[in-house]
């Protein structure tokens, strides 16, 4: 069964919190539908093609594929970040953004005038320009994986600036948003198949441990459930 995704979203939203949601919420239809949606490729609304390639590669390096499961790109972190760019957060509306903007000691916190969406735009362009200069015209996503990792480490250590953005600030933004994408409710586009939560053994939106307060060291026995009722 296939439901067009927009209708499906409205339908889900309409049911949230209602009694009928509980009758349908855990139904396999939803699991299947969400599953099929996650495998369709997402078209970024904010990031351009080059930025999108950068983001996919960087997310996958920050949270790589291994024996525990897929990388952050497959889990939808880039989609999550793209969608966040058009929220009050992405526009910097949750932060005090009045000037003057001055550099200060790191412990006094973020002092740039850039909201996240502008920070990404400037820093990714500068990062790719840096890569082109040092790697024969290639972009970040075209580098071999070990080179991508090495470059992210350089950014993390922060000895350079990416446009107006200290490389460390950009790296930390990227790291945090990637992990948010992996571990937030799938409602926001990441954590596909609840794989982030399954990795940690986090039960998601269950939020009722009346009978499980103290397991005396045994693991909690149930898998995660999302706000929309998706299970894994």
């Amino acid at each position, binding site marked *: 069964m296939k439901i067009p995704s927009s209708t499906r979203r409205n339908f889900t939203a309409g049911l949230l919190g209602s009694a009928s949601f509980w009758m349908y919420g855990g139904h396999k239809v939803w699991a299947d539908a969400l599953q099929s949606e996650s495998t369709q490729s997402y078209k970024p609304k904010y990031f351009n093609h080059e930025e999108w390639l950068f983001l996919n590669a960087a997310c996958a390096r920050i949270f790589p594929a291994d024996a525990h499961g897929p990388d952050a790109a497959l889990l939808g972190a880039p989609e999550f970040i793209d969608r966040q760019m058009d929220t009050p*957060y992405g526009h910097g509306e949750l932060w005090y953004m009045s000037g003057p903007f*001055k550099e200060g000691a790191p412990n006094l*916190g973020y002092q740039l005038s850039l909201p996240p969406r502008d920070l990404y735009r400037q820093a990714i362009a500068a990062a790719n320009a840096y890569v082109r200069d040092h790697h024969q015209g290639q972009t970040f996503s075209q580098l071999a994986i070990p080179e991508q990792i090495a470059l992210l480490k350089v950014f993390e250590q922060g000895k350079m600036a990416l446009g107006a953005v200290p490389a460390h600030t950009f790296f930390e933004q990227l*790291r945090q948003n990637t992990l948010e994408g992996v571990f*937030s409710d799938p409602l926001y586009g990441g954590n596909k198949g609840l794989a982030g939560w399954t990795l940690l053994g986090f039960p998601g939106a269950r939020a009722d441990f009346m009978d499980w307060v103290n397991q005396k060291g045994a693991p909690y026995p149930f898998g995660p459930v999302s706000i929309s009722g998706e299970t894994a």
Partner: protein
Amino acid sequence: MCAKKVDAIVIGAGWAGSILAKELTEAGLSVVMLERGDERATAVEGDYPTSIDELRGAIRHRLFQNLSQSTVTIRNMPDQEALPYRRLAAFLPGEGVGGAGLHWSGVHFRVAPDDLALRTNVVARYGKNFIPEGMNLQDYGVTYEELEPFFDKAEKVFGTSGEPYTIKGKIAGNGNRFAPDRSDAFPLPAMGEVYSASLFRSAAANVGYHPYALPAANASAQYTNPYGVQMGPCNFCGYCSGYDCYMYSKASPNVNILPALRQDPKFTLITKAHVLKVNLDADKKKATGVSYLDLRTKKQVELDADLVIISAFQFHNVHLMLLSGIGQPYDPQQNTGTVGRNFVYQTITTSRAWLSPKQYTNLFVGAGGAGVAIDDFNSMNFDHGPLGFVGGSPVWVNQAGVKPIAAAIGGPGGKAPTWGEGYKDAMVDTYRHSLTIDAHGSNMAYRDVYLDLDPTYSNAYGQPLLRMTFNWKDNDIRMNQYVVGKIEPIIKAMGATRYSLGMLKDGEVFDTRRYQTTHLGGGAIMGTDPKTSCVNRYLQSWDVSNVFVIGASAFPQGMGYNPTGMVAALAYWAAYHIRTTYLKNPGPMVQA
């Protein structure tokens, strides 16, 4: 609302404001409570499952102050230029009905009686020279015996769960043996113990310490409070600290006071009303009312009143006093003035113990106020003589429900990577098999740590921001290091496979980027001398006698305990004296 004049105005709809508004309407006054944020109803936005959302909740700050309108500036040293606190991190003030009292955790303490007269006690025991140069150590000017009925009242309103030690001088339970005597039992029995907390309890006892159940304003059973409002039993949902409670189990002004208050026709709550200042008469001795901005119409409104209660949260209280010209601003050079003096915070560091791969700590199970603590190194419960510092810390496992985004961003701890290869392995181990222990301690007041108005930055309404000058000092760093040293034997007794001790480093500067606590204090402190305190022992302004300033702003120094139990008791104490003394004969209740 057509009246231009009311009996009393209460600024801020948090714990302190709601308590004062309830008491004053009970006394027959017409009361308008002004709250800058939105209405907040558990049934609407705190419901299940939509509120069970970490990204929208604690990460994007659904219930916290939106800094885009107003923030503070911060610097560590008086000779530094302060910069704005642009993104929430170190502390998380509230906004909207309930204030931070809606998204708090619920650890609900009374006070260590020694802390109320800390200066007197330290001097008596160790002499005057024991107090380090530059430390403004002071007494509250009120005793535990005087406050006891109000602690009792607050616990009954909050539906607090706990285990007593003594009631009326007789041993009544296995509670905290350092806790002061009680006139009555806790309204509800102690909360259940998660695995981590029970491990801590037995290990701490084995080492010779005295573990007790944290008193929690999370309801361990169904409860109806004296105002007739009901709470449901807490199910350890884990979305506690930073969230509203869909189970109606965590005490909040919204659940425990406002449902009763809203029934009273003498009470009016106006939301989206940002108070700009308290208006004073020409000689600045009487408040005439307040000016507020109606954020819906963008119009400034003047409202007159006989009595003004400033209860807008610790640093907002000080900010409003400075903007209104109530009292004399503190000048650290001359050591004159009191508004902004003795600004304090709380030391907190977290240590982690990893258990065997067979032991699952299920960190997501938890309630904000629940846990097991020891007080052996809090307040004056141990000999400071050979140690040479003032203050102390309770130590505890307070598993409030660890959610994955915060855990993942915080990283696996120890020397493990925070991303890339090896990260997932370490994160899985930490999330499934570790537990944390906090040293949650005092912070003393210092002459060069204070609040004033920023010369450069302003809020969305054109007013100067409040400026914080704050840093950690040697006394408090050494206190923290000493107490954390006492955690090590507990961790060993737990049979941890490895551990990391979190402590303040020598010379460590205050870092605004890391969440610590929202337990800020001082700046409008209470006391017996108008030269060194802003408000008298009834929290009445020394300078403008129809203004009372209620909140942790009254604390002369930061205590080891969480503040809200003390804030609520002081609110009921002040309200009692307003009702029984002030209203009969308005004017200063203590002669300066």
